[in-house]
């Protein structure tokens, strides 16, 4: 891997994080006509307002406020929550770890289900299995997370009583209980991701199966199984890396809704609570951590792609 390519990719990631931090700061603190007023609500006394304005440095020019804020964040200080009066950073990181568990579990389930289904749909193009898979995929991408989540909870928790409806138990403390509490949220996220990955997997496999080297492999007289597994699948699987990375962006948005519905104390729920309570430092930290996670994941995916497919580096 050429060093220049690597350095360029890393620079892009840093640029992304900087732009995101500017945006988050601008939307939350500069855009409101009076951030202090909107934080404290209508019942604030003039003294309280003045004190908070001074504390936030609202009198300073915007760029000065930003640099001050960014400097603090860069040194790892995310500020004190206005709701709990506790430092925001450690609380957000704990929440993030729970969300990551949810995300990783969902991606694993997605890969296990979606890749074989996509390949089967491609192999039986135009037949019943293909139509079935396409219909399910359509339904999966046409239902918002909150609908999928609510319908699954209605079926699996309220009607069949197979799974607990809400709540979170750490799998480290009680493995069985932890998994059963994670099952519904993971299932909800997976339904949507599966629809997405399945569609991509199908069209990638179709593309690869039409390529010259597959025809060559067949003409060489290789058994169909070997053509499929050793030649076609390897190449069709490559773009899945990119798709999963792009889906992380979707996943981060979806997690806000899903954690809210299933009462999981992850970063999405922390963000929703912060937004409802107008807890500025928590909103800023939550949004920044989420977007940074996306930027880092995409960089890692690009690196992984470059390792797996050397052609990409010469572009």
């Amino acid at each position, binding site marked *: 891997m050429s060093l220049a390519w690597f350095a360029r990719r890393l620079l*892009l990631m840093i*640029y*992304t*994080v*900087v*732009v*995101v931090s500017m*945006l*988050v700061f601008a*939307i*939350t603190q500069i*855009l*409101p006509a009076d951030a202090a007023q*909107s934080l404290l609500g209508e019942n604030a006394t003039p003294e309280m307002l003045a004190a908070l304005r001074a504390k936030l440095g609202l009198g300073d020019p915007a760029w000065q406020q930003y640099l001050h804020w960014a400097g603090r964040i860069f040194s790892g200080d995310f500020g004190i929550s206005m709701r709990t009066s506790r430092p925001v950073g450690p609380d957000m990181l704990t929440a993030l770890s729970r969300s990551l568990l949810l995300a990783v579990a969902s991606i694993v389930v997605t890969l296990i289900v979606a890749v074989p289904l996509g390949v089967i749909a491609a192999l039986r193009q135009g037949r019943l299995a293909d139509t079935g898979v396409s219909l399910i995929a*359509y*339904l999966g*991408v*046409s*239902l*918002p*997370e*909150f*609908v999928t989540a*609510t*319908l699954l*909870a*209605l079926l699996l928790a*309220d009607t069949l009583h197979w799974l607990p409806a809400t709540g979170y138990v750490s799998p480290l403390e009680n493995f069985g209980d932890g998994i059963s509490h994670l099952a519904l949220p993971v299932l909800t996220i997976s339904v949507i991701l599966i629809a997405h990955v399945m569609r991509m997997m199908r*069209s990638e496999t*179709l593309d690869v199966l039409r390529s010259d080297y597959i025809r060559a492999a067949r003409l060489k007289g290789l058994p169909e199984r070997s053509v499929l597994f050793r030649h076609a699948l390897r190449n069709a699987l490559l773009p899945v890396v990119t798709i999963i990375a792009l889906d992380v*962006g*979707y996943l*981060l*948005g*979806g997690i*806000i*809704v899903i954690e*809210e519905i299933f009462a999981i104390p992850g970063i999405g729920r922390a*963000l*929703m609570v912060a*937004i409802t309570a*107008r807890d500025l430092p928590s*909103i800023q930290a939550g*949004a920044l951590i*989420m*977007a940074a996670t*996306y*930027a880092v994941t*995409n960089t890692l995916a690009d690196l992984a792609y470059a390792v797996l497919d050397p052609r990409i580096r010469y572009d």
Partner: protein
Amino acid sequence: MTELFIRLIRRPQGLVGVALLALIAVTCLFGPALAPYAPEKIDFLGRFRSPGWHNWLGADEFGRDILSRLMVGARSTVPMALIATLAGSAVGAIVGVGSAYLGGRIDEAIMRTNDAVMAIPGLLMALLLVSTLGNGAGNAVIAIAIAFAPGMARVTRSVALNIRNQDYVKAAIARGEGATWIIFREMLPNVMAPIVIESTIRVSFAVMLFATLSFLGVGAQPPASEWGLMVADARQYMYQAPWGLIAPSAAIALTAIAFNLLGDGLRDALNPRDER
């Protein structure tokens, strides 16, 4: 135009998409006139009445007719998503075409920044904006439009880059036309087709995003019978009256599917060779 329409409805997905959309359009236009009951009509004897002769889709916790609420609620859901998508697409298209026109390092800088903005997930961006602008349907529309613009800019720019090298654009530059003229009169009309396809598919995301914002309590406000809001209300009573939940969910899904089908159908109709 007529030829395109015929090609569109000749495929099953295009036909189903067009039919569903016609149904949705009629509901949006005449919903309040066609609804069997007034959407706010409270009937305490009919609380949680199951679907049947009286209330075709059942009644909610106040005995309000769910079908009537859905039909009236179409107005506070679908047009909002359309407006948000239109506004977002327009802004994105202008940025994308402008970036392609300027080219070189400026194009590079604009697109890198655009990609960076896209690192903020759509729902997160919309939530941040609404929490700043204040809750409500109008602000939710603005937030969705802003959240959509960078994605549209990226799509448009990739198409516009090819247009930029066409002879008629070079000719316009050579005869000394201004940037505004070239961007709006020469380039934009020629990137319309892909933009229309992409926007159509995005309307389904906008419907879902708008319903999600209302569901989370920051979009449309009660007593509006916006569909996401109806799901949020019905969740408390989902064991007693699951129909209250299923009906608006189905309405959201059908609308999203309709726009998805239309978008896919349009893509097939405009590029007949691509059989995927």
